[in-house]
């Protein structure tokens, strides 16, 4: 059991380490920048911005370390950056194997297509978990070092609840991956799709008659800044994301089963 997941997971370790290091460095920079800004009325800087933009980047209570990190790291890196990253990586899984004709050999194994895709998806949990664990630990330690400790429970929650959101991004990537013939196309479409959903949620959030559209976007169900600030979240949001992920995974399995390789 899980031979493919183990093999694929080993191949993901290096990428996960590099990604974690990059996020650690960026977090270090942002946290250092926060110390520089102390005493500056930073909220005034953002006052001029349109509310949609403030909303898009989760700008709220910027003078606190939690509000600052929420906007600069969690909304920017976790919601947008990692969302796009996981959609991109998942987009490449099946499509690149088909393109490189590696799939011929994989499908000669005595395992079903559904299991193959599920195990490849499972291997993506390596970067998903490593980035969250390493990123969270780095941010907690760095904040502690500058004398602005963050509530550990809130930090844990913000990372934990990001997982279902990122899983949906993986699911979107997987569906693109089994539909497209070329990896580059699957990756671009997956990234484009997640980015459009992110924008849609930010833009229509303000327009009342179209505000139902925002419910289509996974970003609607994960809002890191309030979790960091006071630990507010809705479990139903995470449940919706998990159901969406399962739906996308099943869809990718069905589509993969039906296609010629």
């Amino acid at each position, binding site marked *: 059991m899980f*031979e493919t997941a183990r093999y694929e997971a080993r*191949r993901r370790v290096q990428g996960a380490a590099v990604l974690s290091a990059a996020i650690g460095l960026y977090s270090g920079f942002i946290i250092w920048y926060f110390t520089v800004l102390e005493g500056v009325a930073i909220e005034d800087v953002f006052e001029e911005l349109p509310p949609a933009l403030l909303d898009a980047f989760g700008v709220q209570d910027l003078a606190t370390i939690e509000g600052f990190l929420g906007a600069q790291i969690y909304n920017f890196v976790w919601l947008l950056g990692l969302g796009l990253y996981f959609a991109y990586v998942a987009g490449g899984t099946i499509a690149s194997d088909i393109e490189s004709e590696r799939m011929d050999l994989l499908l000669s194994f005595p395992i079903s297509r559904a299991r193959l895709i599920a195990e490849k998806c499972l291997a993506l949990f390596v970067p998903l978990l490593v980035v969250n664990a390493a990123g969270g630990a780095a941010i907690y330690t760095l904040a502690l070092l500058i004398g602005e400790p963050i509530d550990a429970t809130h930090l844990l929650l913000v990372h934990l609840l990001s997982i279902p959101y990122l899983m949906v991004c993986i699911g979107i990537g997987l569906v693109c991956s089994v539909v497209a013939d070329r990896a580059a196309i699957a990756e671009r479409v997956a990234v484009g799709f997640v980015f459009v959903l992110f924008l849609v949620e930010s833009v229509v959030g303000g327009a009342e008659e179209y505000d139902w559209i925002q419910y289509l976007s996974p970003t609607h169900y994960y809002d890191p800044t309030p979790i960091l600030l006071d630990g507010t979240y809705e479990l139903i949001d995470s449940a919706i994301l998990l159901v969406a992920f399962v739906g996308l995974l099943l869809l990718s399995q069905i589509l993969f089963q039906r296609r010629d390789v």
Partner: protein
Amino acid sequence: MDPIEVTGLTKEYGDVRANDDVSFSVERGEVFGFLGPNGAGKSTTIRLLLGLIAPTAGTARVLGADVHDEAALIEAKGRIGYLPAELGFPPNVTGESVLEYHASIKGDDRLDELLEIFTPPIERPIREYSTGNKRMLGLIQAFMHDPELVIMDEPTAGLDPLKQEGFNGFVRDERDRGMTIFLSSHVLSEVRRVCDRVGIIRAGQLVELEEIETLLDQGGKRIRVTTTEEATKALSALDGVVDIQPFPDGIQFIYTGGYNALLRELARHDIQEIEIGEPPLEDIFIHYYGRREPSSETGGDPDV
């Protein structure tokens, strides 16, 4: 039940029929050669057999499993070895790591033995492999779990002549042990050396299915005679003499008639030297295709 049973197998891509009503069986313990030029539909048949693509019509059974029945086919795949034409091993991992992965899924009863026959540098990453090394790694993974049936698409493409000979010997030994082998090729001499039976496919259709011996018999004999000019003329006029190629002291031709008539004619003349041999399979192939296929010997591209 035969290890491979193909009935009316058809695969259409839009207007193109890559396989058109192909039917044949491969018997247990034989080496079956699937011959045809690039683009004839050999790989399509192989991919249909493995369930990589779904047939438009018809069906096939592999080790008793219908290709439409995913569960049965998965069970059968544990007893099948497969060597695709294009080996897309991931470039950044070592050969060893690829084999470990394959072993974890299929088993590796014969790995050590195979590593002595085929010798890819398994400690090195795949990106440093030559085509021949990749092919050898591919052959190892196809046989490592000691399958009942091995399906190979252009197995010797990229192998040097010495390794090719090693491969031929290996295939014959495996057949003698009872393994069934199905291989496709556009290299006729290769098929002649290892196959018991041959199916010839052209433009998606199976045009001939023969014992390799019959195929050679039907193709006649190649006769090379060193003799007088008068005898050369007389021999050229004989019934059943085709593909005449004169050379300074004699004549070479393919003879499809009876031996007695030929010997009677030869006895009338002064013969200095005579050589009777099997014609090259290439010439037999022309019989089915009607013309030389420029790509049949030189082309390295996989077909569709």
